[in-house]
């Protein structure tokens, strides 16, 4: 019997390992036989949302496939903190090629498995938001439109954190980054910019698109399991707070992620073949300010007279997405 040193996380109803649940409903993370694909000792920062998400995603994928997973990793924090030669945190077959080609490399791996009669081996590609929405978008769109048999997971920390917190195409409006400082009358990252990759993925009519956050690990694991039960191109977009880049407390990573969904700024949903199939309703809606105030990247909106106009504009964004995805809490409205 395989035994794995196990840590239990018992902080609130959504946390992994909740002992109030029946054994069948417990998370992969809380089970003795979890794969522990990413071992401890890697170099991620304290409170890293990406490290948490990657471990949960990989272990769930291992569970879902009976351990038949290989992974392709784009350049970025995850790659750097997990494989400083001669060490590797990965207990699964892992390939890093370049920043912008993870999707194409994964397509090649999947084609190789099929051509060599090993298509029981499943391919999971991982990248940050830069490697997904910006430099990797060409290859990713190609992988989508060919419907290659790959699950592509984007760990979205809303910027180029590995290179020192610069703006990406996934950085939210109003955020201060090393390349969008709120100098003078500036608001930080400009409004009217950026792209929504889950919706772009949906536009390719691929079998499965989902969003998730590290605030709900049950939901994240369930979506990985759904994705791995299907073939073809699948996309999972996971919001992963970055204490370094967002200026949030390391202990607040899960809390910040939860406020992102509760404020409506990060809608959690699933889509199949281009159609929205499920959206997770917000249980307790909060104003965006509650989310923004925990992060120094938004502190210029609250210093002195602050920028109520900017906060209102962000609230309007959240309201728009709540309406678009039907996220409004049922007891309100």
């Amino acid at each position, binding site marked *: 019997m395989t035994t794995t040193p196990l840590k239990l996380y018992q902080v609130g109803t959504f946390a992994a390992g909740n002992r109030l649940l029946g054994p069948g409903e417990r998370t992969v993370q809380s089970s003795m036989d979890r794969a522990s694909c990413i071992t401890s000792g890697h170099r991620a920062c304290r409170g890293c949302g990406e490290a948490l998400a990657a471990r949960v995603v990989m272990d769930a994928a291992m569970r879902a496939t009976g*351990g*038949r*997973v*290989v992974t*392709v*990793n784009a350049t970025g924090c995850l*790659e*750097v903190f997990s*494989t*400083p*030669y*001669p060490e*590797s945190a*990965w*207990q*699964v*077959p*892992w*390939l*890093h*090629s*370049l920043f*912008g*080609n993870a999707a*194409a*490399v*994964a*397509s*090649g*791996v*999947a*084609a*190789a*498995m*099929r*051509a*060599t*009669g090993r298509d029981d*081996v499943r391919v999971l590609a991982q990248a940050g938001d830069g490697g997904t929405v910006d430099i990797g978008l*060409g*290859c990713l*769109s*190609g992988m989508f*439109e*060919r419907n*290659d048999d790959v699950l592509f997971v984007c760990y979205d920390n809303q910027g180029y954190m590995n290179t020192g917190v610069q703006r990406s195409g996934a950085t939210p409006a109003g955020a201060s980054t090393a390349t969008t400082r709120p100098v003078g009358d500036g608001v930080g990252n400009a409004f009217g910019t950026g792209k929504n990759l889950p919706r772009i993925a949906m536009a390719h009519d691929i079998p499965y698109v989902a969003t998730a956050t590290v605030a709900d690990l049950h939901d994240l694991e369930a979506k990985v399991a759904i994705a791995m039960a299907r073939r073809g191109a699948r996309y999972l977009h996971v919001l992963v707070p970055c204490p370094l880049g967002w200026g949030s407390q390391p202990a607040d990573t899960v809390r910040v992620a939860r406020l992102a969904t509760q404020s409506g700024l990060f809608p959690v949903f699933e889509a199949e073949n281009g159609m929205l199939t499920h959206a997770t309703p917000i249980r307790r809606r909060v104003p965006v300010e509650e989310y923004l105030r925990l992060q120094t990247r938004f502190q210029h909106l609250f210093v002195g007279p602050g920028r109520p106009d900017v906060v209102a504009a962000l609230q309007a964004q959240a309201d728009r997405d709540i309406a678009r995805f039907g996220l409004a809490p049922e007891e309100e409205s």
Partner: protein
Amino acid sequence: MLRQLEGSRAVAETVARCRPHVVAAYPISPQTHIVEALSDLVAAGQLAPCQYLLVESEFGALSACIGASAAGARAYTATSSQGLLFMAEALPNASGLGLPMVMTVANRALGAPINIWNDHSDAMSQRDAGWLILFASSNQEAVDLHVQAFALAERLSLPVMVCMDGFVLTHAVEEIDVPDQAQVDAYLPAFRPRQQLDPDDPVTIGAMVGPEAFTEVKYLMAQRQLRALDVVTEVADTFATAFGRDSGGLLRPYRTEDADVVVVAQGSVLGSLADVVDDLRETGVAAGALGVTCYRPWPWDAVRRALLGIPRVIVVNRAVAVGSGSILGQDVRLSAPAGTTVSDVVLGLGGRPVTRDGLRRLVLDVLAGRLDGEALTYYDVDRERVAVELARELGDAAPTSGARP
């Protein structure tokens, strides 16, 4: 069996007989006929279980080959010119990760100005990417080099580029012997990857290496490249035994013994050059030709030995290092024995024809001292035309330079 075939078709059929598992390609002239023919063969089920990925770019094509090779599959792609440059980031990645694969480069000029015709600017620009780079002198050799390339790549665990002149070879129809399946199967063993992505034996490929080990990794890569020189020779020898014809190897010397002048070149120009050498020999000029088949790794010793005792060497460069000079010529100069005079000539850029007459005139001009010493000579440039343009450019600069009348 000899058949009348287009070079591209012959290469496609040959690649098919090497049984690739994964082909990933993006169309670009003049590579297109190769990937079209392969797509037909795949569609007809002749390559099953080969997977053909119609990717969104050359960067995607090479990236898919990287993934396929790392997963233990025999991978193939083809490109030209801008496509090769679009792959540029992935080229040293494939070689650095030690991933065997084969790529045809249908050689074409690099823009700007955009130009679809043949020269060697594309492959020569990637000479330091860590790939083996082989140049075919004919369509028959292009066919043969592809079979050898898979053998080389997999023996060395390195990627191999097979260069064939765009249009001049790719679109030329001539008699070619495409090895039959049984011959290729007997020559080319099944691919046994040194390392592969396998859930039963997990490995980490592509880790980050810092200053404490990076130099050592690079040193070992360089050593493996140098060792490849012996393997290139061995593979060509075994090919000659199995197929009964000489193809590949490091160099292709033609009547260089006792030569007073030897022209060094790459690619299809070597065919014309052999005729010119014959003509010159008949008129009493002791000329010879030296084809460079294996351009990377550079066959330093072989070139030096081939040029020993040759007083005058002319290098035909079909690519230029702007701001520096020749490319092939620089390599030849490094290897030329002391006392050899090297004339560096640029010829046939962007599809300008390299004719027998032109080559013959070139040799006679060099021997008569009509070329400008050892400097780089743009032999077929329209001197009147560039003089006019130069005068205009220098004239434009006059107001700011202040010194020019």
